[in-house]
């Protein structure tokens, strides 16, 4: 599915319109988040002062956090802050939200990127294969096999993966991004362990990090595999029904060339779009797998903050997710313009 903002005409007007749209979307996101924050029966003040604290302490902190202001004042204050580039401090970690996110985001990006490489790397060829062999045994096999990954609760597959490949077979590392032994060994330049360790030539750390990454990434990848396969198959079927495919065959092109040379050229933008969306989904939606694998990532950061009522952090997280989705949107829009001559 394409999130794309419909291609508008007139460069400048279009640009202004799009900027406006983005702004409205982001504002809406923030407002919704803010509203949710008020509705949530989690009490950041209580989380901070603890169960045993008395009413006086509670009220003191309540006031300090500005919770006694009217909601709209709080929201306006928050917007003002953001406009000044200040995303506030996380109540939960006492650190600037931006710093926290700069730390957890690379971990998740690493995970999601690997997962999507696996998901798309396998999913696209499998989807094409299934479409080419529609309703034949290969098709059924591919569909059912890929759906298996999609139909199991991910925390369950994650746990089973850990038991099997970590505890029993000892093929991969356990939870976390890297063995403790290596922790802090490489200087965090980008925050991406793989890149940092490669940069500093610490191949032991690199290998160890890879070893920790491969299992959660595979499981996430497997979950997106089904979606990507199905969409690829479905896009491909649409194309294979088109008359130009017959044209290609009339020319004497083999099936392989017809599929990859002609049909595939017509689905690549759609593919990039859904892969990008799946990727975006992985960035925000990896909470469960992050929990199972003790992965210090964005998903669990956001979820934990939500459950603590740490709205400063949650708002920023939501904002980031919104920006990611909008960026993916624009990317897919751009790709349509680049790859599909009809939209130029």
């Amino acid at each position, binding site marked *: 599915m394409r999130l794309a903002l419909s291609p508008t005409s007139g460069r400048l007007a279009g640009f202004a319109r799009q900027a406006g749209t983005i702004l409205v979307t982001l504002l809406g996101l923030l407002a919704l988040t803010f509203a949710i924050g008020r509705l949530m*029966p989690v009490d950041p003040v*209580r989380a901070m*002062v603890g169960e045993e604290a008395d*009413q006086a302490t509670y009220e003191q902190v309540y006031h300090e956090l500005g919770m006694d202001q009217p909601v709209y004042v709080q929201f306006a204050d928050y917007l003002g802050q953001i406009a000044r580039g200040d995303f506030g401090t996380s109540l939960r970690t006492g650190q600037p939200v931006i710093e926290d996110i700069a730390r957890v985001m690379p971990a998740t990006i690493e995970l999601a990127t690997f997962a999507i490489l696996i998901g798309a790397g396998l999913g696209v060829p499998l989807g094409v294969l299934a479409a080419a062999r529609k309703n034949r045994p290969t098709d059924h096999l591919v569909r059912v096999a890929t759906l298996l990954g999609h139909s199991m609760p991910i925390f369950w597959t994650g746990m089973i993966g850990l038991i099997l490949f970590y505890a029993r077979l000892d093929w991969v590392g356990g939870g976390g991004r890297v063995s403790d032994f290596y*922790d802090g060994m490489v200087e965090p330049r980008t925050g991406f362990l793989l890149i940092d360790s490669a940069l500093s030539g610490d191949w032991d750390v690199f290998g160890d990090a890879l070893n920790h990454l491969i299992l959660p990434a595979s499981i996430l990848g497997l979950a997106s595999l089904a979606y990507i396969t199905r969409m690829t198959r479905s896009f491909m079927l649409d194309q294979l029904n088109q008359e130009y495919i017959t044209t290609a065959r009339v020319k004497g092109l083999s099936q392989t060339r017809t599929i990859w040379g002609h049909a595939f050229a017509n689905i690549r933008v759609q593919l990039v779009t859904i892969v990008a969306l799946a990727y975006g989904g992985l960035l925000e939606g990896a909470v469960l797998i992050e929990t199972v694998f003790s992965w*210090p990532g964005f998903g669990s*950061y956001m979820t934990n903050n939500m*459950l603590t009522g740490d709205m400063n952090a949650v708002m920023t997280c939501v904002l980031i997710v919104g920006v990611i989705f909008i960026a993916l949107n624009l990317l897919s829009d751009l790709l349509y313009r680049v790859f599909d001559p009809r939209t130029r």
Partner: protein
Amino acid sequence: ETPKDQLVVGFSMTNVLTLDPAAITGREPVQILANVYDNLVTLDAKDRAKVNPDLAESWAIAPDNKSITFHLRDDAVFASGNPVTAQDVVWSLNRLMTLNLAQASFLKTHGFTKENAGASFTAPDERTVVVTLPKPVDPKVIVQTLGIVGPGSVLDSKLVMENEKDGDLGADWLNTHSAGSGKFTFDGWKANDRVILTRNGDYWGEPSAMKRVIMRHIPESQNQRLMLEKGDIDIGFSLAGPDLKALSAEEGVEVISQPGSGFYYLAVSMKDERLAKPKVREALRYLIDYDGINAAIMPYYGQAHQRPIASGVIGAMPDPGYTLDVDRAKTLLSEAGYPDGFKVTLRALADAPFMSTATAIQATLKQAGIDAEIISGSGEQIYGAMRERNFELLVGRGGGGQLPHPDSNLRAIIYNPDNSDAAKLTNFQGWRTSFYDPEINAAIDAALIESDADKQVAMYHDIQGRIATVVPSIQPFAEVLDSVAYRADLENFTLNPSWGTDLGAITKDR
């Protein structure tokens, strides 16, 4: 395998919100700070009633029980190199009361306030600290209080003040930095990931054998267990019952389980007219499958215990022996006017072992015709409702006990000096459940200031006797157990019931 000179500890750090000793809540931060900050005294890890010297070599209670004088040792230094002085101690206590955050409540209970802090904590000289009690209490309780991490933690006042911002008494800086004199120091923590403690080479006592301690956030118990089995972590602090059970059979892993603080209980709200009837509460007392729950659900979480005073402290008594007795409960219900039972809600946290316990209690209530609908949720939805006195039944955990003194339990669970809604005594579970018995209140107050040890024990026995007959709003069915698993090659691992396990004492036998 973990390195020989590093200790890797797994636990769930979801609740670590700050590392400022005045502001921490919950048990995980205590476990961290215990190894970073020293107190005047420490509570003995084995003998709960015993208090050991730490920064204070000795202390003396004034004959009139109105003040305590601590004498500091003279070789103690902070990790920064600054000497530990009486001013630091007094400053730390003042800071605690001024900030008035979570950890202040321990002292506030005994009459200390922001306002009287200046007069209560004084330093006649560099090495002497005098604590003057604002109201009559058993001074032993105050000494114990100063032994717990948080209220008693001594901070490096110079270092903190160097990092003060806008008169916050260093609160912001202390979130992520340490200013203690303990065996380790840290430089911030990564939320959701880990805290790394580095050996304090200049520690005034015996330095730690471990170069560093890595405390890892491993929220999933099973993951902790697998890593422990494989030796990727040395200690697992937040393991669930089933995993501990499995680990106890595992070669190379030891499991210890010892009484911690607090109880698992069934609470009722006396605001509910049905539950306000003593007969109904008594019926509920006989509708808990004590044996079943403790055998099937509680192992490693708790052990059978039916009285509101922890085992091992003064005045503790054996259990009265309540059992599941549906017929008796039914009779009691009929007498109370509910022969066919009624409908209620039963709140419980969505975690283990609360949910299973609630489920089990729901089933036994059903046998007497009481139809309980379980409401599960986050802390706010369960305890929040309790704080607002807006609940019916609740399976919970609590009841003080960080201090090895019966008063700590009774005050937390039954004491309620003012039952009005406006009083908002949300830190007393007595108030939360609207249980109000002036007689018991008076007895608790009296027992606390009784200076004759034998008499005091007798008074606590009397209180427990009265509790058995009036059936208060909270019925414990188990006492909290702290259960930890660790690699068998660790030596000198002693689990501290106050969560302040000394990791610096541990060595590895390889």
